[in-house]
């Protein structure tokens, strides 16, 4: 069922079994896992079903450090959340991403890739993907007339991505949620405060507000934060009337370790002979689109002590004219419609002389977990009286060294295979230069800020995503990530959410 919280009598009290805060990919997935169960699920969404600028404005905040996208634009504040403009890229994390790596400070998840595998498979139906198959051999058979680069897979391997259509959760799940007998969706229900008992060991209720001036209370046995990294941290920090440092923040970890993917043009690939590289570009299979990106093996990452990252390809003439993501936003005042951003960057290939001969290699690489890259509270408050978020995005030399080394490794392998040569772009050529160019930008992927750990001194949540010190407060989604891995976060955040949901089912 659906209720517009603007129309409720002021100071209503809403009660249920599980209260999910946020109706994006994580929140809706969690809710759907409980559909038709006996429990009453309260699903709170701060916006409505469509974009509303007054609501979106609640996400505005400050950014410092490495230039970043405006906070108002980075997540969508309506039912369906940021699936309203995501591009659909899906791939699971690698095994190494979960391991403790001695060259990556603060790495090491309390769970393994194997723990997530069954949930990855279940995630596929949520985002309308093909079978849970990510081997290059499988997709080679699906994509006609395609072939692999003849590389040593113990050094450079082909990591597969599948592409969701992209599934817009707001469209796909609106009717199932609204028509559900046990999921109670409240729109225009912005949570502004979380209140615990006197010992701050159990959450009693949350306060919801909207710009119609209404304020209500929601009570439940269990609460799940599902607003993504910036807003999850913001809400915990702002709920500080009982715990001055914020809820779950006894060890000053909430908001820290904000991570992005660096997504940047990085090198050119020049081939000896023309090759359309079909397997590495967006290919239709008649069903799901898929493509390979060049990835660096675990052995090579360990030997060279570098981060995990991949290189994708676009034809060089397109790549040369692509604006950096950080500049793309500047061209469009409001990112309400991500399609607008994509449309403003469309162009025809201008130089056909390099067709099939040269490609731009584009990096997607994890950021090293960095406690100084963090979300804090600003002094300014939004129209509902909640302190705004302030993001300081910070990087380390490891990111740049890793990017350079990735292309050296790829260049060596392509040279060994007599296939081509790689040329690093300017900003990667000087080994001693650890500065970041103006084109530095992320992929609009927000991870960390309530990281997992087996030790409360090193994490906000435990291996089951429960906030340390609070019996009934959980966090769903990518804010729990310990490391960022190479792939886009959506598939993994939904998988992690489904795992949390199964855990809650054992408790409920």
């Amino acid at each position: 069922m659906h209720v517009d919280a603007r129309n409720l009598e002021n100071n209503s009290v809403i009660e249920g079994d599980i209260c999910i805060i946020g109706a994006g990919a994580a929140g809706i997935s969690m809710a759907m896992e409980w559909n038709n169960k006996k429990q009453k699920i309260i699903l709170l969404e701060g916006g409505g079903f469509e974009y509303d600028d007054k609501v979106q404005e609640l996400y505005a905040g400050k950014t410092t450090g490495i230039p970043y996208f405006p906070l108002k634009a980075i997540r969508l504040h309506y039912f369906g959340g940021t699936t309203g403009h995501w591009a659909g890229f899906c791939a699971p994390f690698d095994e190494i991403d979960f391991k403790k790596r001695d060259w990556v400070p603060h790495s090491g998840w309390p769970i393994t890739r194997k723990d997530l595998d069954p949930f990855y498979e279940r995630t596929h139906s949520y985002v309308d993907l093909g079978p849970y198959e990510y081997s290059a051999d499988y997709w080679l058979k699906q994509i006609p007339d395609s072939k692999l680069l003849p590389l040593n897979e113990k050094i450079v391997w082909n990591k597969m991505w599948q592409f969701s259509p992209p599934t817009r959760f707001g469209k796909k799940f609106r009717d199932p949620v609204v028509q559900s007998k046990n999921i109670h969706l409240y729109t225009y229900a912005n949570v502004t405060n979380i209140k615990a008992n006197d010992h701050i060991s159990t959450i009693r209720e949350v306060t919801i507000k909207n710009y119609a001036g209404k304020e209500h209370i929601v009570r439940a046995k269990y609460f799940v934060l599902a607003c993504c990294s910036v807003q999850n941290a913001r809400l915990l920090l702002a709920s500080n009337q009982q715990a001055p440092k914020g809820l779950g923040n006894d060890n000053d970890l909430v908001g820290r370790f904000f991570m992005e993917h660096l997504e940047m043009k990085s090198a050119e690939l020049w081939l000896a002979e023309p090759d359309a590289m079909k397997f590495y570009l967006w290919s239709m299979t008649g069903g799901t689109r898929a493509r390979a990106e060049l990835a660096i093996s675990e052995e090579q990452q360990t030997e060279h002590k570098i981060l995990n990252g991949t290189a994708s390809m676009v034809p060089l003439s397109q790549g040369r004219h692509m604006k950096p993501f950080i500049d793309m936003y500047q061209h469009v005042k409001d990112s309400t419609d991500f399609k607008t951003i994509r449309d403003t960057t469309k162009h025809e290939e201008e130089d056909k002389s390099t067709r099939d001969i040269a490609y731009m290699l584009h990096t997607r690489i994890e950021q090293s977990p960095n406690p100084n890259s963090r979300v804090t509270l600003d002094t300014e408050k939004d129209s509902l009286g909640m302190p705004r978020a302030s993001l300081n995005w910070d990087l380390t030399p490891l990111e740049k060294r890793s990017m350079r080394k990735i292309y050296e490794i790829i260049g060596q392998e392509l040279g060994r295979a007599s296939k081509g040569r790689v040329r690093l772009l300017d900003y990667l050529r000087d080994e001693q230069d650890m500065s970041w160019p103006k084109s530095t930008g992320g992929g609009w992927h927000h991870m960390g800020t309530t990281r997992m750990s087996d030790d409360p001194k090193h994490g906000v949540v435990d291996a089951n995503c429960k906030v340390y010190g609070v019996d009934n407060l959980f966090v769903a989604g990518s804010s729990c990530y310990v490391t960022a891995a190479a792939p886009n976060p959506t598939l993994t955040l939904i998988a992690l959410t489904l795992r949390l949901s199964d855990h809650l089912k054992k408790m409920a």
Partner: protein
Amino acid sequence: MKRRDFIRLSAFSTALLGVPFIAGCHYKPGNAVILQPVFLVHIMDKKSLLETGQQYLKQVPDEASANKLEKLLMDNSALTGSADAESVHNYFSKKTADDFANKQTVVVDGWVLSATEARQCALFSLAES
């Protein structure tokens, strides 16, 4: 670089042997094909080869001598000054591949190159000077 500026190996060979600068330059290789990085001539124009060579010489000033470079390139090979172009081509082709296999690579002006082809570019730039 534009593809129309690429100089194919056969054309390059012909051009090189016919180019007046060879007659006038200070360095005369035992075999002119030594100056032709096997792979790079397919993707680089003459200007790019020269720039790459000059950059390599800046990076490795110890090798800024035509005789030294030729010695490093010929490296106990059985090739003589009268070896045919194909033999020299095959020798450098294998040497380049071996460099990559053994990670004997260097980054020059952003290019990830084998040591051999970087030296060939360097030698070419000395021959041109």
